[in-house]
């Protein structure tokens, strides 16, 4: 594959805490341990640098509480 290391991506994680019900689906499905639940049981971004922008959290969030925006 060509250009594997080229074009670094900027990944922005948007969290809407007020809509989160703390089911933990995003935390469990994230392959890079980017997310965790905070003391109030809501989603928190703990390792933003590890995010690859795969979007598994967003498409599986039942509450529309997390979104990934990737800029190439």
């Amino acid at each position: 594959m060509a250009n594997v290391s080229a074009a670094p991506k900027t990944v922005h994680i948007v969290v809407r805490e007020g809509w989160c019900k703390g089911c933990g689906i995003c935390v469990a499905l994230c392959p890079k341990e980017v997310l965790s639940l905070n003391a109030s049981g809501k989603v928190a971004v703990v390792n933003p640098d590890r995010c690859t922008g795969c979007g598994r959290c967003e498409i599986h969030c039942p509450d529309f509480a997390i979104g990934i925006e990737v800029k190439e």
Partner: protein
Amino acid sequence: MLSQVESHLRSDRFPHIWCPGCGNGIVLAALVRAIEELGYDPDKTVVVSGIGCSSRAAGYLDFNTLHTTHGRALAFATGIKLARPELEVFVLMGDGDATAIGGNHFIHAARRNIDLTAIIFNNSIYGMTGGQYSPLTPPGKRATTAPYGNIERSFDIAELAKGAGATYVARATTYHATMLEKLIVAGARNKGFSVIEAITACPVGYGRRNKMGNGLQMLLWQKEHAVTVKQAEKMSPEELRDKIVIGELYKGEAPEYTAMYQQVIERAQKTTGQ
């Protein structure tokens, strides 16, 4: 992207009513992404729903929406499509809404092959009314009305739809959310009656009573139990017994109802000289 999805939501109605871990929101998000991908004009897109947890979905969407009576979503949608065939009509129903209370509407919409896209949220239970068993509760599973386990056999929605005449039949789970989105797109493009069954988790009304864990565990259960159409072809009926076959299950050809009806209108106008 969440911002694109959000542009089609009535954000002032959020957070939604669904329980933590309920899969209905995953189905709703897949539908919005599908409509975005289809590029439909929101003003020409109609979402009709019946009654039940899943049918609350229509109220969260910023399209033309209609929240109707129990089991009658397809009847209302049939009226809309007949009156305004140029509109894109999606019908959201639960398993009980579609196949018990609305069972007759379901088979006849399929028989007519009317150009509607029906999405059935199958959570195997009546969630909103208190966890009663539905025609989709698998045999042996517990419900408030089956405390010793369900003694009835369940419907296979896909077979029912196919047998009744639907021309596009597909199934995905909320774990396979991207596949679900693609199947909704394909179903909407089919000029005829399309049925997409979405297997979704009800952790409170069904999962807890059947010791299936929380929403996350039920989502992972879907991952473990789903097999694609291609994989299923190589498996024996015995191996497939506790599996969910996902993907495009049937595609057929048949005259579409509103197109046939238009021909009747033209014939009648010719006869009466109008």
